[in-house]
């Protein structure tokens, strides 16, 4: 009995050693396809989706973890990610993924499938991100002081519940003022989304002199940055000051996807020495 216990102990030790002392793999290369999936579904229905992961490294096996998070917008226009189900526009809790953890051999591919069950009475737009974390499959535990590097890539899921979408928005601020750079003005535009679906307000800002003559025009939110339902977002556009001093009028027209455009005006003055 004692000998048997020793044998088992040595076997476990040998198996563990194989993981502890393997030289760490170096490079990581992961492809996900697609990085964005859009669904238009009736409430109460289920849709299925799939993301294909490819390990494009020839020598490194990857350990992959798959999980869901919610998205929010940051002031710089990028997204931050929070716990699933923590935002009112989330669909993360309705998504079931399989598999959620696996190893991807060098050059290997794996389909990650998911289904999304839209609860009855759901309205508007819902959003989530499926993250894929990749690290080398075999990592030594005995490498001295060091930092591991791994990567995380995401597939954004955009769900629209058919026949329930309400597009509604208002312009809450439109102001043209001095910026940190004396040669430029800041055009600040704040849009509040009163509807129940993500909007991407785009439009134009026209600059007129005090006689109503158009002197310039520029696009607003060219990249199509979004505003989530029941939230506001400020967009800042830098604008080179008119060469001549005087009084000016800025006029903005915004198309947010609703039936009507929204707009506003902002007066500003350019004076010598500004």
């Amino acid at each position: 009995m004692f000998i048997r216990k020793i044998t088992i102990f040595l076997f476990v030790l040998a198996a563990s050693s194989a993981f502890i002392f393997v030289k760490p793999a170096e490079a990581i290369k992961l492809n996900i396809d697609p990085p964005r999936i859009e669904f238009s579904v009736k409430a109460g229905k289920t849709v299925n989706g799939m993301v294909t992961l490819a390990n494009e490294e020839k020598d490194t096996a990857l350990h992959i973890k798959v999980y869901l998070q919610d998205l929010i917008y940051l002031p710089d226009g990028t997204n931050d990610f929070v716990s699933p189900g923590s935002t009112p526009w989330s669909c993360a809790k309705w998504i079931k993924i399989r598999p959620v953890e696996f190893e991807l051999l060098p050059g290997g591919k794996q389909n990650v499938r998911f289904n999304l069950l839209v609860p009855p009475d759901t309205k508007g737009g819902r959003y989530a991100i499926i993250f894929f974390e990749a690290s080398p499959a075999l990592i030594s535990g005995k490498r001295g002081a060091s930092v591991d590097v791994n990567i995380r890539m995401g597939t954004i899921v955009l769900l629209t519940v058919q026949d329930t979408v309400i597009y509604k928005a208002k312009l809450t601020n439109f102001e043209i003022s001095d910026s940190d750079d004396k040669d430029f003005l800041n055009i600040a535009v704040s849009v509040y989304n009163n509807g129940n679906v993500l909007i991407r307000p785009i439009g134009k800002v026209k600059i007129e002199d005090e006689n109503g003559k158009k002197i310039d025009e520029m696009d607003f939110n060219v990249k199509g940055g979004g505003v989530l339902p029941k939230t506001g977002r400020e967009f800042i556009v830098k604008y080179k000051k008119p060469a001549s001093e005087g009084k000016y009028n800025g006029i903005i027209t915004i198309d947010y996807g609703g039936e009507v455009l929204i707009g506003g005006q902002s007066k500003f003055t350019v004076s010598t020495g500004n």
Partner: protein
Amino acid sequence: MKFIFITLLLVSITTICLAGEFTMSTDTSNVSFGEMAIGDWKELGGGTYHNQLTCKSTNGKTWYVKIYVLAPLTSGTKTINNSYFKYMPGWTNGTGSVQNQYSFIAFSGISSLVYVSGPDDNSGSDVYLQFKYGLSIPANQVAGIYNTTVRYVMTETL
């Protein structure tokens, strides 16, 4: 028989056309500072860089890269504050914007924006982003083997 062959060929071509690329790679997954003494400052990357990310998208949409550290450098119960551990975004061939390019920035547990793609980066070209790292050892730091994980994140915007 010939008809069946042609049909299969068409299906195959359709599949190829639909496949997109959204890829990120790093040429090394380890940042090793080796032995350091109290008060030392060590940079990894020399005159060039320590690791290079390669990002690629054929999706036509803006994407970005962020960086964060999962936890402070830790040895047992001892930690080195994130303010002593820094990264420097260096050269890129991309047409987008690099945040704090050529400056050492202290790591944070909150992800920091490194790169936002430009219009020319969204149609399948390889975009290279190079990084250096630096670490200083604070006074009174207890000796130990300190480890942590740095994570790079690549996504499109919602």
